[in-house]
């Protein structure tokens, strides 16, 4: 099967890949572009571990073909760090124990990143609704919610809201 060239912006940098049309975005991100932060959990669009930011929306990159990313702006968890400094969400997940095994964390971070862009001061119910497409089997979600609330407070105080690579 012939390959197709796809160009898009990944974490602020233009990238070019050659893919078979059937290749999923998550596979290309991890295996060709070596951005292994985004995880493959279920590969059936249930768990949210592969969540990335795609043209300003959260999507599950296991349910998108890489060819569909032509001209897109994609942010993965690798794009949250700027100048070696953790994004307030990442810091808050550390401080509030928002993870245990960490497998769901990149997806949780990317989903909460977009959630706070859309709704900078969410209620607990809005956070629960907002991350309802991301499964965590360790924390029981309590500390994830605390982490997102803390990050929202930090961001709202400091005005730090965009990933540098966005």
């Amino acid at each position, binding site marked *: 099967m012939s390959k197709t060239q796809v160009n898009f912006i990944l974490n602020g940098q233009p990238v070019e890949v050659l893919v078979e049309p059937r290749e999923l975005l998550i596979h290309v991100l991890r295996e060709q572009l070596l951005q292994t932060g985004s995880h493959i959990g279920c590969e059936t669009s249930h768990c949210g571990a592969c969540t990335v930011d795609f043209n300003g929306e959260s*999507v599950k990159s296991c349910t998108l073909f890489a060819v569909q990313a032509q001209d897109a702006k994609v942010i993965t968890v690798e794009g949250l760090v700027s100048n070696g400094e953790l994004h307030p969400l990442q810091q808050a997940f550390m401080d509030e124990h928002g993870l245990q095994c960490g497998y769901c964390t990149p997806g949780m971070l990317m989903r909460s990143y977009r959630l706070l862009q859309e709704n900078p001061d969410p209620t607990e119910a809005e956070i629960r609704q907002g991350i309802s497409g991301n499964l965590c089997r360790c924390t029981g979600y309590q500390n994830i919610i605390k982490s997102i609330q803390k990050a929202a407070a930090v961001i709202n105080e400091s005005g730090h809201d965009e990933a540098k690579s966005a």
Partner: protein
Amino acid sequence: MIPPSFQYHAPGSVDDAVALLSQYGDEAKLLAGGHSLLPMMKLRFAEPEHLVDINNIESLKGIREENGEIVIGAMTTESALISSALLQEKCPLLPEAAGLIGDPQVRNRGTIGGDIAHGDPANDHPALMMALDAIFTLVGPNGSRQVAANDFYLGTFYTALEADEILTEIRFSPQSPNTGASYHKLKRKTGDFATAAAAAVIEMSGDTCQRARITLTNLGPTALRVKDAEAVLVGQVITDDLIDQAAQKAMDICDPVQDLRGDVEYKTHMAGEMTRRAIKTAIERAKG
């Protein structure tokens, strides 16, 4: 979970997409949001030779009011339905129901047209469209035609849409005054299909029901319209007893498939309860 190989096409217009469908016939499949198709391709339940991605066709997106009708482009996402001020004002049923589909990420990709045209009886929009008396515009090589939602579903994964046609638009009337609508969906968890769900659109004049539409999701080979339940209500002063009778009529036509969500008896019972709740909520809203 690697989908089978296919040739990828990303036409920029409906005409180009129809031309590709005409050229490749049964070997081609349209790619809308992909949240039903990709899982099927991963499981090799679907193995299209040609995938026609219609995400780049801007004319298929958006929600507008035209000549007193609501018009929704087939590639409008569930998220766009939820955030539409026009729909919240003129057809709050749709944003409410769209919020019960999938999860936030899925709703960012999943489209109303894909949900309608897939023909899966578990999808939510078919019953909603039937309750709204929606009209679908289908465009093929010989032009466009209109098919009513209530005539569109012929069987499981079998609709009036021909292999070389595209569903482009959905039209329906805005909610009239003294009308209330509601969708009650029982599901086990976020992202799941309905164990049982019911839509009700009811117009009241005081305590008397003037008009009713009652439809069901995932309780038969297609979404079901329960005309017998509507007939129980129309022209009557609504009482709890009448609502129970309508719910019984809904249960009478249920033909669900037993699966992990429940057995036939349980699903049928829940269909009655969802119908009861949908009717009650719709009437409360109609009375405002």
